[in-house]
Every structure is written in structure tokens, then in C-alpha cells.
């Protein structure tokens, strides 16, 4: 049985200006501990799809099944990391943010703080446990957000362009860190990006989407050994193939 399964998802946005088709007939399945990237041009419905999987939006047609159960609303089996730095609670320290999910579960204070500190260590921020978010850089804030999503140990990690707003060097570091974290924790990860190199670096499999309305165009399995070398010929070949797949649309319009 696949861990996550999207069955024929369609969603129409109801706006004052009329109905906007968001997604049409999106289906895919993934195994536990798989790292799936979703790429596609801006506006093709990547965030919409992720929000549906997270349970923030209910689709008009179709359903998401996680471990065989249909998704109804958000749940603690999924951790979410958004693109926006502002996702951290400014009134809580880094540690307080990471401990939030455990606090909601009713884990005693000492225990949850120990766990949260462990997670911060995983993203190399244990020395900033007592800092408030506004004293952290953008990259550090995103690392705290990742630790926060991991802390209550969800089986699935959903990430929506978490590093898009970072500079290239920091983004490189972050990608390496994320690959490490995934290797140690073996979560099932869905990662949205429009950066092709990032997708090839991180993913087991890449879902390519096309816009108007958002549909799955094709899937590409990345058969490269890890850790991956972004300068190798094979890496560049995959990158070219994805760019070609994305570029076809651009011409089509």
C-alpha cells in the first residue's frame, strides 16, 4: 500500500471574478520514506496541492489518502514548513516554537524541551534555543521551522518552497542539511519548488506540473546515488530533461 495517495484531485477557486480552476485530475502515489519533489511554473497549483495534502483546503473532487485513511483537515501525522519566514511565532523563543507541537500533544515540559533541543541540534541551532525569531537570520528561521515540523515526529513532511527566499549560498547549505536530516529521519517528504537543480539534488522522484488548470504532466525518477554531485554529467542531464519538460509548456502557450 502506498503511504500517500492522491486520487483524481480537482479544485476550483471561487473568486469574486468568477471560478478559477486550480487543479484538475491530479493523481500520484508515493511510498513511505520517499522524497518527492513537485516542480512546475508559477501558478500551476503546487501550493494548492500541498495545502490540500496538509488538509487546509478540501478539494472539490477526489481525495488524499495517507496510510490508507482519507484526509480530513490537518493532523499531527503531517508536519508543514511554509515558504514565509513569518511562520514562526514571534512571541516564542526558537525552543518554544519547536516545542509547540509537543505541547499540544500534552507532553510534559521537561521532556518536550529535551526533544525540542534535540531537534534544534539536528539543524545545528542548539546555541540559539533561547533566541526569539526576530534575532535570527532568514536561513536560521527556516531551519527552526524545519525542526518545529519534525519535533512531534510526524510521518510526513510537507514543504512549500522553504528555501526560495534565501540567497544561493545559504540555500546550498540548507539543501545539504535537509538531505542529511531526511537520511537520518527517513520521513516521507513532499517538497514543492520551481528550482530544477534543487529538485534533482533532493528528490527520488520529481512530479512535473503544467498550469491552467494544474495537472500532472509527467514523473521523472532520479536514479542517482547519494550524496549527489551537482556538477556530474548525469546530474546535468536530469536538469536538462526537466528544463526541457517545463520549457515545452512555455512554448505551448
Amino acid at each position, binding site marked *: 500500500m502506498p503511504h500517500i495517495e492522491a486520487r483524481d484531485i480537482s479544485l476550483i477557486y471561487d473568486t469574486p471574478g468568477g471560478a478559477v480552476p486550480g487543479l484538475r485530475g491530479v493523481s500520484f502515489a508515493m511510498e513511505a520514506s520517499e522524497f518527492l519533489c513537485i516542480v512546475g511554473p508559477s501558478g500551476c497549483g503546487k501550493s494548492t496541492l500541498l495545502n490540500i495534502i496538509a488538509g487546509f483546503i478540501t478539494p472539490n473532487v477526489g481525495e488524499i489518502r495517507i496510510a490508507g485513511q482519507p484526509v480530513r*483537515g490537518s493532523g*499531527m501525522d503531517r508536519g508543514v514548513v511554509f515558504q514565509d519566514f513569518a511562520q514562526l511565532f514571534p*512571541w516564542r523563543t526558537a525552543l518554544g516554537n519547536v516545542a509547540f507541537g509537543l*505541547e499540544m500533544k500534552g507532553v510534559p515540559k521537561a521532556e518536550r524541551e529535551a526533544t525540542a533541543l534535540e531537534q534544534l541540534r539536528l539543524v545545528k541551532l542548539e546555541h540559539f534555543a533561547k533566541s526569539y525569531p*526576530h534575532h535570527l537570520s532568514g536561513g536560521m528561521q527556516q531551519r527552526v521551522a524545519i525542526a518545529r515540523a519534525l519535533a512531534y515526529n510526524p510521518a510526513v513532511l510537507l514543504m512549500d518552497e522553504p528555501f526560495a527566499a534565501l540567497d544561493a549560498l545559504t540555500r546550498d547549505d540548507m539543501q545539504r542539511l535537509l538531505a542529511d536530516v531526511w537520511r537520518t529521519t527517513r520521513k516521507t517528504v513532499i517538497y514543492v519548488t520551481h528550482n530544477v537543480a534543487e529538485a534533482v539534488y533532493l528528490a527520488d522522484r520529481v512530479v512535473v506540473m503544467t498550469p491552467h488548470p494544474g495537472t500532472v504532466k509527467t514523473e521523472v525518477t532520479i536514479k542517482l546515488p547519494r550524496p549527489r554531485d551537482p556538477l556530474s554529467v548525469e546530474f546535468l542531464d536530469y536538469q536538462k530533461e526537466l528544463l526541457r519538460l517545463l520549457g515545452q509548456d512555455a512554448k505551448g502557450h
Partner: protein
Amino acid sequence: MIADRARSLWRGAVTVIVVLAIYEAVARSGHFAPALMPTLGVVLQTLLGSLLDGSMFEHAAATLYRVLCGFGLAVFVGLPLGVLMGRFRPVENFVLPLASALMPIPSLAWIPVFILWLGLGNAVTILIVLYAALFPMLLNTWSGVRAVNPIWLRAAGAMGANENALFWKVIIPGASPFIIAGLRQSFLRAWVAVIGAEMLAASNFGLGWVIFDAKEFLNTDVMLSSLIVIGFIGFVTERLVFGSLERATIYRWGMAQAAKT
């Protein structure tokens, strides 16, 4: 930098001294009746006297009691109602039109009506303070709740927060810049209202009443000492109470910008 600071302080001190000296000179010149313009010595003596015999403390206590009751009620009503307005459309639809119609009426305008209904005394003053302080509290809380970043609600929801946790751990802290601005504004309005209400409706205690009563007997020195105490209390609450509340919360969290509209 430090020299600059010192010069500013020095100049400030000089201004205050010069202004006081001019006042003293005019007061001593004999152009005005001493009853209308007592010398600084007399004012200070009166102030000290009233502090030492405890009467000033009694008046201040009466005023503080009234203002705290009215302000406390305003927070007690305005904060939850503001949150409800921000969270539930029907509550907003019902309360907002009423609030927008009542808010532009200065609280002091109700004094004669309330006196007629309740008689002179504490109840009128407290009610006037409540009226003055309620609307800033209500409307600030309401805008604060609406300004809570939806991504915080989603993140908390994804981590399993229920309505109760959402309220106490996300909405209230998320709206805190506005709520604190509301508390501050409310208290300022309450402080003005209590003085006005005491002048017009108090029986025989309170700093506002002292000023008003002193006018009848041309006790300008009493008036001025009461003014000094009023200013002192206003200053202390503004700087110490609300200042430290802000430093402990929104400044520490880097959220101070949010409510400075």
C-alpha cells in the same frame, strides 16, 4: 554622543528652571492676586502638607479606585468581545455598527444622564470611565485579531492545536501589539474621563473633585498641587506600567512595529 546627551539634559533643566523662575517673578510682582497665582513656595508647602496629613493620598486613592474599576471593566468586556468580533462574523455585524455610533459621543456627555439615573457618586464616575475606555479596547482587540497572520493559525492547526490552545497560545499573543496599544489608549482615555467625571459628578473625594472644589474657594495652590499629583500618576503609569509591559512582550518579540499605525 554622551556630550550631546549631557547638553540636552542641561538645556532641558535650564528651561524648566527658567519657566519656574518667570512664574515666580510674575507671582511676586503683585500684578495678580496671590490667591490666583500663589508663589512656588506656597504651592510646594500645600502639596507637602496634603501629603503629610494623608489627605492627598486619600484623594488619589479614591481616583485610582474609580479609574481602575472602570478600566478593569472595560478590559473585562472589551477584550473578549473584541476577540469574538474578530473571530465570528455575526458578532462583528452586530457590535460594530453600535460601537461606531456610540464611540463618537464623548463620554462626558453622558454625565448628566447618568447622574439623573444613578445619583451623584462612584457609580456615575466608574460608568463614565468604562464608557471612555471601552471603545479603544474593543476596536484595537478586534483589529488585532483580524491582523493575526493566518500562517500562524495554519501552523498551529497543523501541530494539533485545538480552539482553546489556538485562542490562548496563538490569537492572544499574535494580536498582542494591538491589544497593548488598546490597553494604553484605554487607560489614557480613562484617566481623562475620571478627572472630568469627578469634577462634574463626584461627591467629596478624588483629585478631580479637589481641583474643582478648590476653584470655589480660590485655592489655586491646592489646585496646582493636585495637578502635580495627577500629572505624576499619569506619567508613572504611562512610562512604568505600560512601558514595562511593552518591553516584556512586543519589544522582546520584535513585534513592536505591527501596531504603530
